[in-house]
């Protein structure tokens, strides 16, 4: 992986049409500005992960025995 060091206000380019600017750093958060053509999708990786999990969840099996066991965990002596 290419690793660059940048200060707030500095930027870099990917190809000719994507420009990334470090807007601000405070604590453990970095604000990043992205200038890219409209048709280019920019998604946070946790959003893509969530989307994938949702798609798997929608085809999950319904095993009632399992769900019952899950819902009533500590009832048997």
């Amino acid at each position, binding site marked *: 992986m290419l690793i660059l060091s940048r200060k707030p206000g500095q930027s870099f380019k990917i190809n000719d049409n994507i420009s990334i600017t470090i807007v601000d750093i405070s604590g453990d958060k970095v604000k990043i500005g992205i200038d890219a053509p409209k048709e280019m999708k920019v998604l946070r990786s946790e959003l893509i992960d*969530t989307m994938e999990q949702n798609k798997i*969840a*929608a085809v999950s099996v319904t095993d009632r025995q399992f769900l019952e066991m899950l819902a009533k965990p500590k009832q048997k002596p």
Partner: protein
Amino acid sequence: MKIKTRDFGEISVSPDAIIRFKLPIYGFEQYTDFTLISDPNIGGSIVWLQSVQDPDLCFILVDPKLVSEEYSPKLSDDMEKLLRSKGINETEIWVIAVIPQEFRKSTVNLKSPIMIDMSSKSAAQIILDEDYPIRAPLLPAGKGRD
């Protein structure tokens, strides 16, 4: 009204039991209307989030307290405005379960809970800023395992 469901056959649902997603379930943007179904044999800690638009679309939601007692994500001001109609705090927090054939490998997404305001019947899937796992094991270590 009557709706067809994936796991409960045809059921009747009153209009005020319809939950509308103000922000979509990611990947299912075209589906906004759902209803919650619970199974008396299973109790209140697991519910079915059944699409009203598509009988085959259904998610199993789990009370996050089953997974972690400490789980208490905060609703941002923006989200509060989006979900709450009367400023009443009736927001329920659920997490989506992923249950594979080998159900011991089931997980829940603690990073992106489903928040439902029961007074306004508005809901959203919210990706939290806080560090929670997207694939948290549903079963505690040891439980249900060999």
